[in-house]
Structures are given as C-alpha cells and as structure tokens.
C-alpha cells in the first residue's frame, strides 16, 4: 500500500477530484495548507510597509491506494493539476505499513 501526498493549487481541487473519481478512487483527505517551492510568494503592502508573503495557499490531498493503482492516481492528479506555470505543486509517494477500517476492523488492502 502506498500513501500519495499531492500539493496542488487550490482552484484545481475540483478538477483533481473528478479525475481521481474516474481513476476509481473511493476516498481521500484534503487539507488547506500554505507553502512555497520555487514559486516565491508575493510582496504585499500593509499601511505603507512592504512585506513578503512566502506562504502561498495550497491544497494537500492525501490518499492511500493499493500498489497497482499508484501510477494511475499519479497520472490523474498530474494531468488535472498541471497548468504549466510555477506553483503547480508536487506529488510524493511513500509506503504505508498497515491500514485498518475502524467500523469493521478489516485490515490491509481490504481496508482501503
């Protein structure tokens, strides 16, 4: 089982969600986040004083899938989130040791 973490632009969420549904995903978790990579923040002015906002609003999507689904999910997110401009985001894939469905007690892939 793999944990897929994707950081994307906020307005992409709907498109990414639709693409994931088409890829057969049944569940995911979304967090509002702020961050930066090579996309620098922007400069704002407050009552005459300039300051940098380095932390740009982002959405973090997390989902745990069976190993065989990883490529499909990564492709779905990449294609829907790509605008070609700096700030599109990143996807990370890590390994999950175990998963349990609380309601039934199932574990492993059956819990996904």
């Amino acid at each position, binding site marked *: 089982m793999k944990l897929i973490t994707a950081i994307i632009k906020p307005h992409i969420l709907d498109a990414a969600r639709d693409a994931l549904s088409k890829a057969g995903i049944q569940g995911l978790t979304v967090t509002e986040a702020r961050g930066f990579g090579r996309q620098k923040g*922007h400069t704002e002015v407050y009552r005459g004083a300039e300051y940098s906002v380095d*932390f740009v609003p982002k959405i973090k999507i997390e989902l745990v899938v069976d190993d065989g689904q990883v490529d499909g999910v990564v492709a779905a997110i990449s294609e829907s989130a790509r605008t070609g401009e700096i700030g599109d985001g990143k996807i990370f894939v890590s390994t999950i040791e175990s998963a349990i469905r609380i309601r039934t007690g199932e574990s492993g892939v059956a819990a996904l």
Partner: protein
Amino acid sequence: MMKCNRRIPTTRLVASIFGLLILAQQVGYAQDDTVSTELFTVNNTWMLVATFLVFIMHLGFASLESGLTQAKNTVNILFKNTAIVAIGLLTYAFVGFNLMYPGDFSIGQFVGFAGVGLDPGPDGNTVAYAGGGYTYWTDFIFQAMFAATAATIVSGAVAERIKLGSFLVFTTLYVAIIYPIAGSWKWGGGWLDQMGFYDFAGSTLVHSVGGWGALAGVIILGPRLGKYVNGQVRAIAGHNMPLATIGVFLLWLGWFGFNGGSVLSADPELVSLVFVTTCLAAAAGIIGAMFTSWTVQKKPDLTMILNGALAGLVGITAGADVVSVNASMIIGLIAGIIVVFSVLAIDRNHLDDPVGAISVHLVCGIWGTLAVGIFSADHSFVTQLIGVVAYGLISLPAALIIFTVLKSTVGLRVSEEEERGGLDVAEHGMESYNGI
C-alpha cells in the same frame, strides 16, 4: 476634585428632555409655519436619529456581502462598501441633492437642477423650510444616506469579479446622475408624483433603482468562474455566516430610520405605525422564506431566511405608512416567498448574483410598489405599475450603457488568474485574514 464647568448636571438634562416631550405632546402635529420651536426641535432630532440609523445600513451591507462571499475577496468587498459611502455623500452634496429636488423642472417634469453645491438660503434652517419637520441640513444629510444605499445594492451582485476602478466609475455616474434624476420624478415633485404614484421610503426609488443596476452588472459582467459548469449550478459558498447575520440585523436596525424617517417628522402616530408595519413585514418575510426554503430545498437555508427578512423590509418600504398592519404582514410574507423562488430562478437562468441583491431589491422592490396599489384604497395599481416600468426604463438601460462602455474601454472584469487567486491580493495587495 476639580470641577468641570462644561458638564451639564444630569438632573437638568433629564428635566429638559422631559419638558420637551411634554411640550411635544401638548402642541398639535400640524406641519405648518406655526409649529413651535420645541416641536421643530423634536421633529428635527428624530430626523437626525433616522439619518444615522440609515447610515448604519452601510455596515450592514458590508457585513452581509462579506459573509456571503469568499474570504479571498473580503478586503475588496469592504473597500467597495467604504468607498461607496464616500462617493454617495460627496456627489449628493455637489449635484445629487439638487438634481433630486430641483424645485423647478427645466425639461418637462423630468429633469431639473437647482445648482451645484449646497445652500440653505435664508429660510433653510428655520421652521419655514419644511413645515417645521427638519432643517435644510437635516434634509440633505438624511437624503444623502439614502443615495449611498442605492449604490451599495449593486456592489453585492457584481462581487468577486468586477474591477475595482470600473466599479467605482459606475457607482459615481449612477449615484450622481441616474439615481437623483429618477428620484426627482416622485420625491422631487416630478411627473410621477403628479400622477399620484406613491413610494413612501423607496421600494422603487432606492431599491429597484439599485436592483436594476445590479441586474445590468450581472448581465454584462458574466458569472464567476466555476459557477455554471456543464449546465449545472455550482455553489460558491459564503465564508462567514455570523457576519452575514450581523449584516442583516444591522440593515433591519437601519430600516427603523429608513422608514421611520421617511415620515419626515416625529409625528407619533405615523412613526410608530411605520415601526410596526416595517417590523411585522420583516418578520413575515422571514417566515415566508423559511417555509418556502424548507419545502423547496428540503432543509431550511439560513441565507434564504436572511434574504427573507430583507425581502419583507424592501416590500413594505413603498407603503409602510398607508397599508394596514395586517396588510404589512401579508406583503412581507409574500415577499419572503417570492425571494426564495427568485434566487433559484435567477441562478437557473445563469445570472450569477452572489448575495441575492436582484431578488431582494429589484423583485421585491417591484412587489412592494405594486402592493401599495393592491392594499391601499387610495392608490391605483395601474399608476404604481407605470412608475415601476418608468424606473425600469431609465435605470436598466442607463446601467447597461455605463457597464458596456466600461467593458469596451478600460475593461470590467478582472483576469482569470486574479479571480482565482482572489481580489484581495490582486487588487489590494493584502489579505483579509492574515494567516501563518
């Protein structure tokens, strides 16, 4: 302990007020030159209280619009609402007041202008000015607050995608020229007044004029990105329900002055009657919207009953002093029902109005105006209808023209990227809720 000479002893202050009230009761409420100084003072004082009650409606609009739109645009909403008050008051001082109350009309009974700037004249601040109801200055500042509220109705409908500069240009032209000229037709003694058309506090003159402007803006501007996708209406939820609720209650509070002050004196019977009809209409509007929303939408929607309260208030505004108390409840109830269906219908026609301004102010403004013809034996439905149409014929085309010209010259709408990122950062370089 040092004694401060300027402090009025409390007992003397209370005695003075008491004395004024007793005198006010004893003298008759005839509005003529023989009104006593004491009565003049009481009348004028009430009118000034009404003025600042109407003023607080701007905070109401600012709060309501902020609550019903997205957080990334809140600075922009607040900025627009603050600027509108300034534009309204200042343009009214320069030209608006004298366009609305020209005294003599130059072009038929359609347009007249009493000159640039304010001038009370020799009688302006005496009992002779308005039959002892208020002074020239009170007249100006009370009416100026109304002008600004007409402008602010548009800001909610065009929210989240209109360019700030273009919006301010529209507001200036609309409130400086269109609103007062149209208003002169009734309150300035123009042709509609002579025909017997009746609009007590502005269901047509303020609310529908604002509403037509809102409709024009929504049409020319287009919907927000992502609002209508594949023929479906998608919800773009407001970010702060408490703020929206605070806004509506502030507006209701303001309406005590909006309607109460439109009596144009402190006449005990009329002002107290108007308080009753106004509040019962608001209450009935909430109930009407509640039942409609609960039935049609399956679950009772807070934003709909908030709109319902305003719908009732707008609906009673045309006839708060001439319809019966029972009629006020019916008018409010029907307004509350209408507003829910109107919001849904307008959305289904892919006209994006984030706060329901068109439904509350235009649709219910028209309803309220026609209701005077229905529920008051002294007023004709046909005359009311003529008035409604006349105001539509001046307001909608004027607003459409201004918006279209702005669109083809400086542009009306922000870019897609700016809209996605939020106007706070794009237009103002700041955020409303500074985060991490």
